[in-house]
Structure formats: structure tokens, C-alpha cells
């Protein structure tokens, strides 16, 4: 028979995911009441937007074992798609967001289906090339996209009479999206489809003998991740009311990838950590402006060399090993 204390611990263990999500949601709900500096809240909003992108990318890298260096392009399609639809064409914001996400699905299928037919890392190149194409179009097609100087005057999102026009209001909106996506991903990896993906991540041949359709699963995760990036892009455009091509070049894609690696490939919770760390790092270190590339690169290299399972998971594991060995 379990003692009362054991029972509590067992309950906590059993419901650890749900409890963590609830705790985090309450924290996020209360946070703007404590933190009144709009700049800080704005930063956390940016983190939420990146979390949306990186969640999908993390599923794709961690479970499909493939590299996408083009998620900034899907992010761009979301942002510019929403910007053009609402500002130039005057369409309502929410339906445009959905329509743009659907367009992204089609685009992701067009890029992903041929590239994922092959084993090997062709998708890395296809997505990288795609990102360069999208970026060049954003810069060159200035009558539609505003060219290098950007696209401004994008309207704020509204919900009934509520206008998401300041950081705090936007905080609730964007973190709701991020938490829903987080829950979705957490549930996805525990569903039948998710178990199939996990098997695929471990060993593709073994998974396919067990009936997992490798190619189809990879394409599905890729499309899911592109869609999340597109929605994040739409939110980004409506949040800042301004977008410019520099937020969507290949180096942004590389930064997304660094967030995934820092958080741990295939770790859903790690995504929160990776996105936060890489977004906040320049705020903490003043000198980082000159050394930004080197610091980002070194973080990536050192983590991959010594803690390839991600910063937190890697540190926890090495501490555990130390404790086990010292007994």
C-alpha cells in the first residue's frame, strides 16, 4: 500500500505534464501584473512568437531527423501574407491568417514532397534555396512587398471590440497561441502518430517494418512545422505593424535551428528554453553586438560537441552520472 506521501508524489508524477502546463499558464497570466515595463513584456512576446516557430521545427528536426534551413521563409510567408492581405487588399485579419496558413501548407508540400522522397539531406538544400528565393522576392518585388525598406501600416488584431494594440494585450494573445501549440505538440508526441514518429527518430528501418510510413510522416511533420511558422509570422506582422526582409533571411533560419539545438532536439519543453535563451542573450551581454556571430556559433558548437541532447537535458544527465558514480 502506498503511504499518503507516496500517493501525493505519485499523483504529481502522473500529472507532471498537465501540472507544469497549468503552472506555467498561471505564471504567464499573472506576469504582466508584476512586470510593467513594456519593453520586457515585448521581449517575452517575441519569445512566444519564436516558440511557435521553433516548436514545429523542433518536432521536425527531432523526430524526422531532417534539417530545415528555411523556416524563416515560412515565417515570412505568414508575415507578408497577412500584411498584404489586410493592408493592401483590406481583408479581415483572422480569416487572412487562416488563408495564408493554408497557402503555406501548399508551399510546404511543394518543397517537402520532392525533397523528402530522398534519404540524405536534400531538404536542407531545398529549404535553404527556398529561403533565398523568398528573401530575394521580398527585396526585389518592391511594388508589393515594400522592398528593402519594409512594409508598414499593418493593422492590429481585434477580437470583438478588444484591440490588441499594446504589449500587455498582445502578451495574452500571443502566449495563448504559444501554449495551445505547446499542448498540441505535447499531445501529438503521445498519440499514435507521435509514437510512430518517435520510432522513426530512433530507427527508420525498424519503424517502417512496424508499419510507419516514413516518407508520409516526414512530410506531415514538415507541413505542420511550416504552418506553425506561418501563423507565428502573421502574429509577428500584426504585433509590430511593420515587417522588413531582414527578419526573414537565412541567418534567421539558422538562429531558429540554434534555438532547437540549445533546447534539445526533439524536446518540446526544451523549445521554451532555447527560444528564450537565444532571444534574451543579446539583452544580457552588451558586447554581444560585435561578437554576436561568434557567440551564437560557439554556443552551437560547444553544445553539439559536449551536450548533443540539449543544454538542460545534457547537464541533468551529466550531473546524474556524477552522482551515480560517486556513490
Amino acid at each position, binding site marked *: 500500500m502506498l503511504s499518503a506521501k507516496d500517493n501525493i508524489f505519485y499523483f504529481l508524477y502522473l500529472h507532471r505534464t498537465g501540472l507544469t502546463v497549468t503552472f506555467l499558464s498561471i505564471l504567464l497570466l499573472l506576469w504582466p501584473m508584476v512586470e510593467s515595463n513594456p519593453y520586457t513584456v515585448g521581449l517575452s512576446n517575441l519569445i512566444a512568437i519564436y516558440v511557435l516557430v521553433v516548436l514545429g521545427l523542433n518536432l521536425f528536426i527531432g523526430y524526422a531527423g531532417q534539417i530545415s534551413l528555411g523556416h524563416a521563409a515560412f515565417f515570412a510567408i505568414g508575415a507578408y501574407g497577412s500584411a498584404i492581405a489586410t493592408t493592401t487588399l483590406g481583408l479581415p485579419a483572422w480569416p487572412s491568417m487562416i488563408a495564408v496558413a493554408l497557402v503555406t501548407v501548399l508551399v510546404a508540400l511543394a518543397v517537402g514532397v520532392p525533397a523528402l522522397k530522398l534519404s540524405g539531406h536534400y531538404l536542407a538544400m531545398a529549404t535553404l*534555396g527556398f529561403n533565398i528565393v523568398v528573401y530575394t522576392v521580398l527585396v526585389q518585388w518592391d511594388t508589393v512587398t515594400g522592398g528593402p525598406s519594409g512594409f508598414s501600416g499593418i493593422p492590429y488584431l481585434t477580437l470583438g471590440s478588444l484591440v490588441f494594440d499594446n504589449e500587455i494585450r498582445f502578451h495574452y494573445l500571443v502566449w495563448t497561441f504559444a501554449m495551445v501549440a505547446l499542448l498540441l505538440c505535447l499531445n501529438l508526441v503521445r498519440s499514435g502518430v507521435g509514437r510512430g514518429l518517435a520510432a522513426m527518430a530512433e530507427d527508420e528501418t525498424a519503424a517502417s517494418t512496424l508499419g510507419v510510413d516514413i516518407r508520409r510522416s516526414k512530410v506531415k511533420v514538415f507541413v505542420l512545422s511550416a504552418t506553425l511558422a506561418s501563423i507565428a509570422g502573421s502574429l509577428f506582422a500584426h504585433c509590430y505593424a511593420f515587417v522588413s526582409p531582414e527578419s526573414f533571411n537565412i541567418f534567421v533560419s539558422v538562429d531558429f535551428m540554434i534555438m532547437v539545438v540549445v533546447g534539445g532536439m526533439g524536446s518540446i519543453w526544451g523549445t521554451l528554453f532555447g527560444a528564450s535563451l537565444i532571444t534574451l542573450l543579446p539583452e544580457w551581454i552588451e558586447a554581444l553586438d560585435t561578437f554576436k556571430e561568434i557567440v551564437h556559433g560557439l554556443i552551437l*558548437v560547444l553544445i553539439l560537441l559536449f551536450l548533443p541532447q540539449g543544454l538542460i537535458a545534457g547537464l541533468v544527465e551529466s550531473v546524474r552520472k556524477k552522482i551515480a558514480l560517486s556513490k
Partner: protein
Amino acid sequence: MNGFHDLLQFIFAGLTNGAIYTLIALGFCVVQNTMGIVNFTQVDFVSLGGMFLFSGLFWAGLPMGMALFVAVAGVTVMGMAVERLGVRPSRSKDHLVLIFLTIGISIVLRGAMKLIWGKNRMAVPPLAGEEPLRFAGASILPQAVAVLVITVLAIVLLVFFFRGTRLGLAMRAVASNQAAASVVGIPVGRIKAASFALAGALGGLAGVLVTPITTLSYDVGVLLGLKGFAAAILGGFGSFPGAVLGGVGLGLVESLTAGYVSSAYKDVVAFVVLLLVLFARPKGLLGK
């Protein structure tokens, strides 16, 4: 006859760029064959080649021929250093981790170049004179001739290297079957380091040849390198004749598009062609 002259001019330009893409593509293929990974530092080998040439000429005051040699040798050593210090110590042998590592090292290299040589664009003098040569009504820069001649020489040397030298044969053995190669006593680790060195040499050579045409900056290699990568995949990733075909083909398509269609989207052509090829013939033109 004007149209013909234009065409000739575009073909010359395409061949020159194509030669550069070919050298870079070959560098990608060498590492792909021995290690099975995409080596993204190839991109920075190109910039480094130009940087070393610039420093050799203006900081050390070397004559052109000497500076050229030193630059290529320098990047070769850098290639080996990347493998020794960056890729080999990895605890994980997972290809995904190794590819990410090369991306990380590439970012570090680019940051370091930005610190050492600054952000400004620099001009590198051409290897040969500046007076354009006339050929059948089209004018061609001596530098372009130098690029073509040196690239052809490099490819001939490479063929000899892979067919006639012990190291080259060992490299091919590792490429075809790593376990079997180590069984017959080939030091696989050293061969991998050598393949990075060769990739460095090819990238460095590309950088030395191209920077007098494009001007030099710390990130000049990124777009060139990625086009080289596109060329490698276009020809069939890992295939050497494919790399040559892909490189030259890409160069020609690019310059003809820039000449006849639109020069604003010149940089996009390579990647559109690549996406189309992946769609229609996913293993590349000469892929197995």
C-alpha cells in the same frame, strides 16, 4: 550579329562563374563521400581564400604567385583544423549533429573573419592584367581566362590525384566502404582529415579566383558557396563529373537568365533550377 556577340559574352560569363561553382561543388562532394555529411564550412573556405590572398598581398607584401600559393595552402590547413578541432571531437557520430556542427563552425569562422578583416568590402587585384581581350567580337577579362585555365588544371590534377596516388585511392576506398577500408589498413580518421584539407584547398582556390571579380567581404562565400552546393546536388551529390556538369550548367543558366530575362532575380535562378531538378530528377543529373 550583335545578338551573337551578346550570347558569346553571356556564355563566357557563365563559364567563369560555372568554374567557380564547380570548384566549390567538388569540395562539398569530397567531404560528402568520405564522411556522408554536408560540410557547411565549405562556404567560408571560399571567403577565407580571398582573405588570405588579400593579407598575403597587402599585409605581407608577397608577389602574386606566392600569395596565391600561400592563400590556398592556408585554407587547406584551415580545413584540416576544422576537422581536427571541430568535427572529430564530437561525442555523437549522428550525421544530423555533425552537419549542425559544421553550420556552427561556419558561423564562428564568419564572425572571426568579420573581427579580423572588418565589415567593409575590399578589392583584390586580378591575377592577370586588366586589359580585356577581344575574342570573336566579345570581350573577355584576363581574370576570366585565368579562372578557366586554373580550374581545368585543378580538375586534371584532381583526376590524377584520385586515380594515381595512394592518398587519392585510399580516399575513394573510404568513400566506397569505410569498414572495408579500415580492415585493409587504411587510416580512416586521417583520410577524413585529408578530405577536409582537400575541400579547403578547393574552396580556397575558388575564393582566390573569384574575389578579384566580386570584391571581397567576410560573407562573400555564403551565396557563392550555397550556389556551389546547389551545383553539387544538381549534378548528383557526391559525383565528381556531376559536380563539374552541375557547376558549369548552373553558371550558364544563371548568366543567360541574367542576360535575357532579368538580372534582379539572378541569384534566385540557381535555387529555382535546383528545386525543379529535385522535383523532376531527385538524384541529380548524374546521380546513382
